[in-house]
């Protein structure tokens, strides 16, 4: 029983970080119907930036979020203007292929800058844990999950309480309608993309403490985000949170009760199982496009 509670706690803690990681992708999809395959590579980029800040300047990896988030915001804005914007109006397949190409370019660039060996940031609390009634809660995981929830809440407040956020939600619900009532779609798209990349940068800072990573790690992360959207549906923040928690639990249970080497297969297996059993997705939010007319 303790083992089960322990595993559940681990699963939910990591699920919080997954939720932050997936929220950027689902936000971007909601507004511009782009599946950003480079999402995993951007996460690893955030992790490398954090690693360098920690390694060179001794900045705490979780505090580094204050630097990585704006930096990634700017990078996302630039990326949108140079790469994504020229493709607006192009079929979905074009952006899938474009971002797939970009993912490989980022992987290569990170390999050239930071090398291809495995890294991880190890702050002082790296191997300490809280002990709550016999349940071990590693400090890094608890802090990371708390920060992830904080960032997600800020994102939620931004989306619901500010004009810019409401414009994003309006554009997400009905792009044409939003443009008719005066929302500047081009501006909103750029903002959304930048915010999406900024959140994945923040998630990258947490990942730098929680997992060893190297440039090639982005594949497993893209698999995770895809399985989260298959589980939770695409385009809604709530779906991302639920899908992330489910994936976190599934991974940790597999690790605990089956074997660690098969835990890497969990995101892929979930994709197969969910699409096989319920092609329309678990949460009712569809993966498929339905007809409007």
């Amino acid at each position, binding site marked *: 029983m303790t083992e089960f509670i322990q595993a559940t706690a681990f699963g939910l803690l990591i699920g919080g970080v997954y939720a932050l990681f997936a929220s950027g992708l689902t936000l971007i999809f909601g507004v511009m119907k782009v*599946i950003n*395959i480079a999402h995993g590579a951007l996460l690893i980029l955030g992790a490398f930036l954090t690693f360098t800040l920690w390694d060179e300047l001794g900045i705490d990896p979780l505090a580094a979020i204050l630097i990585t988030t704006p930096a990634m915001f700017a990078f996302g804005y630039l990326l949108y203007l140079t*790469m994504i914007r*020229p*493709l607006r109006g*192009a*079929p*979905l*397949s*074009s952006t*899938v*292929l*474009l971002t*797939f*190409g*970009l*993912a*490989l*370019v980022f*992987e*290569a*660039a990170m*390999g*050239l800058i930071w090398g*291809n060996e495995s890294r991880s940031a190890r702050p002082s609390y790296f191997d300490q844990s809280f002990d709550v009634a016999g349940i071990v809660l590693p400090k890094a995981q608890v802090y990371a999950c708390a920060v992830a929830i904080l960032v997600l809440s800020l994102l939620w407040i931004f989306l619901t309480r500010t004009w810019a956020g409401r414009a994003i939600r309006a554009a997400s619900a009905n792009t044409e309608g939003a443009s008719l009532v005066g929302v500047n779609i081009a501006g909103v798209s750029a903002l959304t993309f930048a915010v999406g990349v900024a959140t994945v940068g923040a998630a990258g800072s947490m990942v730098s403490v929680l997992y060893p990573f190297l440039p090639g790690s982005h*594949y*497993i992360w*893209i*698999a995770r985000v*895809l*399985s989260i959207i*298959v589980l939770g549906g*695409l385009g809604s923040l709530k779906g991302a949170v639920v899908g992330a928690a489910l994936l976190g639990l599934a991974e940790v249970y597999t690790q605990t009760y089956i074997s660690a*080497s*098969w835990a*890497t*297969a969990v*995101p*892929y*297996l979930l*994709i*197969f199982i969910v*699409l*096989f059993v319920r*092609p*329309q997705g678990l949460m009712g939010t569809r*993966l*498929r*496009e*339905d*007809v409007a*007319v």
Partner: protein
Amino acid sequence: MTERILEVLQRRNLWRLVIAAGAIALISYPLLSDDLYYQNMIIISLLFAIGATGLNVIMGYGGYISLGQSAFIGLGAYTVGIGATKVGGDPFVWVPVAGVAAALFAAFLGVIAMRTRGFSFVIITIAALFILQIVAINWDSLTNGTSGITLPLPRWDISIQNWPFYYTLVGLLGASLLLSWWIRRTKIGTGLLAIREDEDKAATIGIDTPVYKIIGFVASAVFLGMAGGVYGYYLSFIDPSGMFDIVISVQIILAVVLGGRGTLWGPVLGAAIIEPLNEVANQNFGGGNSRLLIFGGLLALTILLLPKGIIPSGRELLEGRTRRGRAALVGVRLGPRAALNETPAPVPAPSGRTLLEVDGLEKRFEGVHAVRACSFAVEEGTITGLIGPNGSGKTTVFNLVGGTMRADAGEVRFDDRRIDRLPPWRRAYAGLGRTFQITRIFPGMTVLENVVAPLRSFSWRQLRAGAVSGEETATASGLLEFVGMQEYGDQPAAELSFGQRKLVELAQVLMLDPKLILLDEPAGGINPTLIARIAEIVRELNDRGKTFLIVEHNMPLVLGLCDPVLVLARGSCISSGGPSEIQRDPRVLDAYLGEDFELEQPVGAP
């Protein structure tokens, strides 16, 4: 004119000459040169070309991207490796088995992913690649894990070098091209194109979309699986990271995109360009990161700068040159309408038999209750009108009857059968045809191709039939003449005006020979002459026994053409009857105008 024809002929001959020369050079190369370095390069480019030619079927024709094609290379290689080492026999004996394994795996993935549209397929293909890699790593007893399988070196005479690998791959490339060419000119090909252009529309004209997509995906995998087996034997070492290599997936995709999606030779051209780059990346820049940088970057750049690929862009350039100054057909007057050259059907007056019956239909979109407790019937032989204020649910009812959407509750019976659980193509086979409010014809096809695309039934034999058979062409030309669009048969549908598209879409639906035709706003957004023509066509078809259900806002047209008229308001049918009855019904006035409206003259009066 004759000069132009000559010019085209010469160009086509030149093209054939280039291909023949390439094929001869490819076949004779090992006989003329013993340079193993270039032989190796050609072997790898053959692998890319086979992969790209296959991928082109599902991605170029069908519009579905697979990011995991190297899964089939790995599966093929492991089939050969495990077969030859665990079971025995010459590795080449296992190559056909590798093809079967790849085809079965593709069919399995297709069954999972192809029931849905959109991204599921991309996601499944990535997942398939990585999960096979994980299985190859973890299933030690079968695959020898990360240490991989070492195959015995070939036992043939050293003087023939790598010829067996080389010529097997040449043969496989030939077979891939033949398959791709054959698919393109059969019903499978037109079906896949229709799916790429507009999948929902394709379903409403009788195309069983999952079957087409699964066939397309299996076709994209089978020869690549065999080539993967040959490739594994050629390297004589099979390991998870080398065989399930995502960079090879990218190279295959890049070959298709760069050469030209949907063309026969584009993928081969792309492969021939990519392999030398691969060699440069490996030899001069140490592989690894530079491979990623070159191919990832090239993929992104191609999508941004040359999205159509080399062959289509080149062709456009050439055609733009030869066609300069020659006006397109747009603006030509509509041709005179011809009578349908069928034996006139006996004229059934409204028989009293119910052809379509809708009972208690319900549809919600989140908060909006678009259709509620909607019930009505359409009698055989009538032209029934369906009117109602904007937002009353008319188009949703059409979507529910046609099968483009599924109802939450309620029944739809057509021709004494329940059809509300059937997919759209089965409803089309049953005799239901529909047009769309914003016309949806396939813009990338010619007008004639559009009209021959519909299928009246499904059979495996039919899939193998030529895309445009003589008989069908005759029927389609007859229908185009009937709507007055005979001049436009060879025009790209994208170049037509909105009104012309309506006529083509009508001809397309007639190809199904439906019993009931649903027209969604046939007079919306077109000029009065064309409205008159459409009314004339509807009357004439009705005389020949076709039943119509027409959604329309143009009241004079509805009141002049339709009897009875159904009135929809807030998702339910509130009234029905003859045009004059409807005009007097207070509920209808209320629904349209609100209860405080003072009527000055009767609705519909001139």
